[in-house]
């Protein structure tokens, strides 16, 4: 045990803050990420994170806490993307890409102007790659609260979200305001991405959003179970990542820690690749085109026959 948990790990204030924020972050991203994968919004999730960078660097420029910058930009971008691309599924990626390009340009400007004001060069690194060990204790309540709120919003909307993901027309016929649900969901996504941006960096928040959820959806077919597996996977990766990053101060090059973000990303990836190994061995006799059993099929079964597990997939 001593080799894994270096002395002083749990008595260190920053580590405790990191573990607390990491827990909220992993659970929020894990649950919200399942919907992102089901709805095919991996790119939207990543773009929100990148656009949040603009807010983060803007906040850095005016001297505000970065979290508020991330949050404001993320929610604004979510509203904008929904406004541009909701009708055209095909054009959505392009619209997202154009918004993303413009936002990244603005981020470049903010970081440049910020670097003119202060002499520090580390700002762009912090904004892009995060720093979970230097989260100031003052912001922790805000971080935790926004994570919990986002989680509640998605939990309350879970059934409607599943329905609108698979069949917007059916949802509309049942009197669901598809557009409102979409905006509410993207706003929750923006919150979770902002949390992740503070902790492991804007450009890497996608790892916690998509990685655990994609892994979970490969392992189980029930959306509820997938959310649980996804949250747990994310939690494991985050905690282990924090512990390893703390330990890495004793690794070469001496006296210089490795970034938490790297460990979290690497662990998430290992989890995803492991999910490839398992089903192969179990379902060898089945059709190689297991993707015919894609997200739509899962949601379809889940939405029509609520509570059914082990959805059977029929080829297209």
């Amino acid at each position, binding site marked *: 045990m001593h080799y894994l948990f270096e002395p002083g790990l749990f008595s260190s204030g920053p580590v405790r803050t990191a573990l607390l924020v990491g827990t909220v972050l992993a659970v929020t991203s894990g649950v919200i990420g399942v919907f992102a*994968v089901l709805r*095919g919004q*991996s*790119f939207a*999730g*990543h773009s929100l994170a990148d656009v949040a960078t603009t807010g983060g660097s803007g906040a850095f420029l005016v001297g505000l806490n970065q979290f508020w910058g991330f949050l404001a930009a993320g929610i604004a971008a979510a509203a904008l993307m929904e406004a541009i691309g909701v009708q055209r599924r*095909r054009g959505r*990626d*392009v619209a*997202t*890409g*154009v*918004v*993303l*390009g*413009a*936002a*990244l*340009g*603005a981020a*470049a*400007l903010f*970081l*440049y102007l910020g*670097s003119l004001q202060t002499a520090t*060069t*580390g700002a*762009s*690194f912090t904004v*892009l*790659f995060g720093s979970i060990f230097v989260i100031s204790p003052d912001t922790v309540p805000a971080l935790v609260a926004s994570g919990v709120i986002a989680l509640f919003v998605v939990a309350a909307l879970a059934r409607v979200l599943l329905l609108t993901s698979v069949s917007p027309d059916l949802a509309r016929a049942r009197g669901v305001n598809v557009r409102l649900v979409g905006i509410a969901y993207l706003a929750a996504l923006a919150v979770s991405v902002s949390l992740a941006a503070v902790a492991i*960096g804007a*450009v*890497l928040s*996608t*790892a916690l959003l*998509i*990685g655990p959820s*994609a892994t979970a959806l490969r392992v189980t077919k029930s959306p509820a179970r997938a959310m649980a597996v996804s949250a747990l996977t994310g939690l494991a990766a985050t905690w282990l990542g924090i512990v390893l990053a703390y330990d890495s101060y004793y690794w070469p*090059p001496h006296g*210089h*820690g*490795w*970034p938490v*973000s*790297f460990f*979290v*990303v*690497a662990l*998430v*990836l290992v989890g*995803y690749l492991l999910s490839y190994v398992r089903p192969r061995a179990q379902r060898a006799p089945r059709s190689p*085109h297991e*993707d*015919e059993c*894609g*997200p*739509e*099929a899962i949601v379809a079964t889940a939405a029509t026959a609520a509570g059914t597990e082990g959805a059977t997939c029929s080829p*297209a």
Partner: protein
Amino acid sequence: MLNTWIAASIVAVIAGITGFFAVLRGQTFTAHAIPNGAFAGAAGASLLGINVIWGLVVFALCGALGIGALGAEGRGRKARNDVVTALALVLMLGLGALFVSISSQYAEETYSLLFGEVFGVSRGEVLPILGLGVAAAVAIGVAFRPLMLTSALPEVAEARGVSTRRMDLYFLIVMALATSMTVPVVGALLMFSLMIGPAAAARSVTARPGAAMALSVVIALATVWLSIALSYQTNWPLGFFVGIIGAAFYLIGLAARAVAPRRAVAPRGAVG
């Protein structure tokens, strides 16, 4: 300054051509992921003390091959490919974060690799960019018809024995080569803006492939030239101007389509 201008023009032409296909094939996310991931390779190469370009090429190619290998085909292909792309991207960026943090002197180069440092182009750098640009253009020219076919009518392509998946991989590799050499000049983020903005604007104006591609190249060139001039005047980062001007062209394209009478309806396949 002349070198900058030449290099940026070559980059704009490559970006216009590859971007056209990226938009047509719905590979916007990949176009974002490969240049960004390649940045990590540059960081790694700099850490090892070898030429940055090798790092860029290795990471861009590995990223492209990884996305191609884990990608899927058939129904639900898009969502699955997006997931794989996202994971490949964060893996490379995670490695980049590690490399950057280990070599602390690299922090300033991080900024210029992400956001571009176009005014530092030397004469020696122009030639490799030209070579790679020609290679990418030839690679697309040779496979133009199967690329168009798999982009527009995947089912027909499969029926004729053209593998969608193989063409996906082919295009990914072309994109990797095209971006890896341009990242140190224009920056990882800027390369993406330059690929998507002009191509999307062109596509919203015309549905004919040839015209859209030519227009995409023209808009990319205009964007770059305008950006260089403005960046030179204001000393603000080039990436800012390229991002904003690219988006502006897209909005103009949308407005033009809304205003202009519908002359020709796009063939179904070309759109969906």
